[in-house]
């Protein structure tokens, strides 16, 4: 299983804050997970489109496209942060 979280504009536009999914076949890192989610179409394809300013965290640490994902991980997608 993967725990997926979405924040801010992504949470609003995707209409979901959190979900649990089985680790999809072929998903090994952030990039392949994003590709898997884009395949859901509509808002997913738009919000996670390559080139959009999206950040990800794996197990609550900032991640890159090539950051590995394993069964049981918590992965979050969100826009660039704007705190402080």
């Amino acid at each position, binding site marked *: 299983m993967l725990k997926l*979280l979405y*924040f*801010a*504009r992504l*949470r609003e536009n995707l209409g979901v804050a959190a979900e649990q999914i089985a680790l999809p076949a072929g998903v090994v890192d952030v990039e392949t997970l994003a590709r898997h989610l884009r395949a859901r179409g509509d808002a997913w394809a738009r919000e996670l489109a390559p080139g959009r*300013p999206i950040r990800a*965290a794996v197990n*609550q*640490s*900032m991640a890159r496209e090539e950051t590995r994902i394993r069964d049981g991980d918590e992965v*979050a997608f*969100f*826009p*660039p*942060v*704007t*705190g*402080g």
Partner: protein
Amino acid sequence: MAIRVQTEDFDAGSELRRLRAGDRTIGAVASFVGLVRDLASAPVAEMVLEHYPGMTEKSLAAIVSEAQARWPLLGAAVIHRVGRLRAGEQIVWVGVASAHRKEAFAACEFIVDALKTRAPFWKKEYTPDGPRWVEARPADEQAARKWEGGDDESAQRS
């Protein structure tokens, strides 16, 4: 190290006193308060600060640890508010104590710069034209990058 993420306001004076309490080798305390700006050209009645519970605290603690590894500090603390905030309200407080001022200033600015790009907070402003998510500023990425690599001296001053 004290890290707090809270909806309530804070008193910078009390936080300063707490930061330097009990250590008489502290010679310098640098601190920072970030506020909700209200511009006539773009009035913001209020904003909501969303965050990523768990990761927020973790990332702030990592930033402060990094500052402590980089400079000889005698204390450091961060308070960041979340939830509904009105114009003029305090958003964030960062305080750093050290023997001498140079380290206190450098570490305090480093922490503020780092949390602007690495801590999972998102601001949504409510304006007369409706709500809008605040866009990340390229200047913030730039400010954070100036601390990367090199020795402390160049990191602080280049």
